[in-house]
C-alpha cells in the first residue's frame, strides 16, 4: 500500500496539462439563498468544469451546504444557475435532478423505514439503471438488501446514499460531506468510490477532511462569509499551509492535533 496522498496525484497533473477546454457543466452566477428569510448564500459565483472533482470548501457555517441546496432549488434562491448549457434556476428540484444531477446530501438522508432495495429502487430514474456498478462498489449492500435502511450503520447508510446517485447516468454529482462522522476505514471506501465515479462524471464536493480533499479534488472553490474568496487548482491551495490556515481554519495536516479534521485515509 502506498501513501495515497502524495504519490498518486496524476489527477492534479492532468488538469494542469489540459486546462478546461470544455464548457463548464455548471455555472453559478450571483447566487443568493435564503432560509426562513435569512440570507445564507450571498452573491456566490463559480464554475464546475465538465471533468474531475471541484471541492467547495470553507469553514463551518459559511454556506457550503446551503450553496448546494440553492443550486438544487431545495431552498429559496435567486441568481443564475446554468446546468449543461441551460438555465435551471427557475426549475423545481425534481426537474433539475431529472436533467442528470445526482445528489448525495449531508447526513445521508436515507429513508429509514424503507429497505436498502427500496431506497435504491426509488432512486432509479434511468430505464437501465447501473445496478451492476453499484453492487460491485458496495457488496455490503447486496447482502443487506432486505434490511431497513434505518438499522444500517452510518457508513452503510452513506453507501446507500452514494449508490442512489451512482445508479443513474448523471452529468454532475453534488456530494455533500460524504465522510462526515465515518470511521477511517469507511472514509477510505467512500473516497475510493468517489474517485471511481469521478472518472466518468464531474463532481462538486463539499468536504471537511483535508486528506480526502487532497485525494479527490482537482479544483477548489473556497467560501467565506457566504461569498467565494478563492478559486483555483487544488494544489495551489493545498500546498500552501498559510492559505489552508486562513481559509479553512485548520493546519495542513502535519500537526497530529488535527486528527479530527484531517483524519487518515487508508488506501
Amino acid at each position, binding site marked *: 500500500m502506498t501513501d495515497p496522498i502524495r504519490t498518486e496525484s496524476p489527477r492534479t497533473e492532468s488538469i494542469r496539462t489540459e486546462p478546461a477546454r470544455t464548457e463548464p457543466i455548471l455555472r453559478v452566477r450571483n447566487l443568493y439563498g435564503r432560509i426562513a428569510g435569512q440570507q445564507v448564500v450571498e452573491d456566490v459565483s463559480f464554475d464546475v468544469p465538465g471533468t474531475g472533482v471541484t471541492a467547495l470548501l470553507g469553514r463551518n457555517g459559511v454556506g457550503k451546504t446551503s450553496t448546494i441546496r440553492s443550486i*438544487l432549488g431545495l431552498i429559496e434562491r435567486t441568481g443564475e444557475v446554468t446546468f449543461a448549457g441551460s438555465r435551471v434556476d427557475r426549475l*423545481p428540484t425534481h426537474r433539475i435532478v431529472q436533467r442528470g444531477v445526482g*445528489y448525495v446530501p449531508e447526513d445521508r438522508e436515507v429513508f429509514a423505514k424503507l429497505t436498502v432495495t427500496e431506497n435504491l429502487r426509488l432512486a432509479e430514474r434511468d430505464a437501465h439503471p447501473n445496478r451492476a456498478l453499484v453492487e460491485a462498489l458496495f457488496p455490503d449492500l447486496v447482502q443487506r438488501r432486505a434490511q431497513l435502511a434505518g438499522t444500517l450503520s452510518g457508513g452503510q447508510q452513506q453507501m446507500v446514499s452514494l449508490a442512489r446517485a451512482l445508479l443513474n447516468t448523471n452529468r454532475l454529482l453534488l456530494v455533500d460531506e460524504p465522510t462526515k462522522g465515518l470511521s477511517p476505514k469507511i472514509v477510505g471506501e467512500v473516497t475510493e468510490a468517489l474517485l471511481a465515479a469521478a472518472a466518468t462524471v464531474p463532481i462538486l464536493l463539499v468536504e471537511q477532511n483535508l486528506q480526502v480533499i487532497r485525494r479527490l479534488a482537482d479544483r477548489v472553490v473556497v467560501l467565506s462569509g457566504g461569498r467565494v474568496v478563492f478559486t483555483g487548482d487544488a494544489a495551489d491551495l493545498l500546498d500552501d499551509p498559510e492559505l489552508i490556515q486562513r481559509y479553512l481554519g485548520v493546519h495542513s495536516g502535519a500537526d497530529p492535533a488535527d486528527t479530527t479534521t484531517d483524519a487518515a485515509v487508508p488506501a
Partner: protein
Amino acid sequence: MSTLVLLLVTGLGLGALYFLVASGLSLIYGLMGVLNFAHGSFLTVGAFIGWEVSRRLSDGSWWALVAAMLVGALVGALAAAATEFFLIRRLYNRHIEQVLVTVGLALATVALFEGIWGTDPTYVTSPAWLAQTTEILGARIPNNRFLLIALAVLVLVTIVGFLRFTRYGLIIRAGVENRTMVTALGIDVRRAFTVVFAIGGAAAGLGGVLASIYYGYVSAHIGSSLLIFAFIVTVIGGLGSLGGAAIASVLVAVLQQFANFYLGGTGDLAVVLALAAVLLVRPRGLLGAKGSTA
C-alpha cells in the same frame, strides 16, 4: 355475554367507518402535512351521489348497493383529487391557509348539500339481509356490521398492498418520511399528493355509503360528525400511520360502545379522555413516527 358480543361487533362496525375516514386523513397528513378538515365532505358527497345512483337503478337490491359503493368511492376520489389539485396544491407548507381553506370548504359543502338534498335525513333502502340479524353466542348482530367490517379490512389490505407493492406506494412511503429527499431524487412528489388525496377520498366515499347503511339514512352532516372521531382516531393512532389508524379505529369505537352502554352514554367523553391520555403518555400516538415531515 351476548351484550358483550353485541357491543364488540357493533364497535368493530363503527370502527370500520372510522377507519375508512381516518386512513385518508392519516395518509394525507403523513405525506403532505395537510390537516384536511374537508375530508368529511368527501364522505358525504360519496354517500349522497352513491345513493342517488342506487335509487335510480333498483332500490334495495344487492347490485344497486354495489353500484352505490363503487359510485360513492369514485365520487369521493374525484372530489378529493379536485380539492388537492385546485385548492391545496397552491398552499403546501402554508398550514394556516390550508386549515382555513379546508374548514371553509367543509362548511360551504355542508350548506351546499343541505341546499340540494334538504336538511332532513334521506332514508336509504339497502338489501333486506343487511337489516336482519344473525345470532352469535346469543347476541343478535345486525348483518350490516359484517359488511362494514369486511369492507374496511378489504380497504386496509388494498391500501397496504398498494403502498407496499407499487412504485407510487414506494414514493408515498418515502415521502411520508422525507418529502424533500424524494424530490431530490428527481421524483415529482406532487403527483403522489394527488394520488393520496384520491385514495383517501375513495375510502371516505365508500365509507359514506356504508355509514348510511349503518345509520339508515344520509344527511348533510354525516361526514362532519364522523370526521371528528376520525381525527381523534388519527391522532391516537399516530399521524401518518395507516396501521395506527386501523388499531385506533377499533379501540376508539369499541371503547365508545362500552362506555355508552355501561357508563350511561358517556361514550364520546370516554373517547376524548382516551385522546387526552394518549397525548399525555405518548404524544406521537400509538404508531406515530418520531419526527414529523410537516
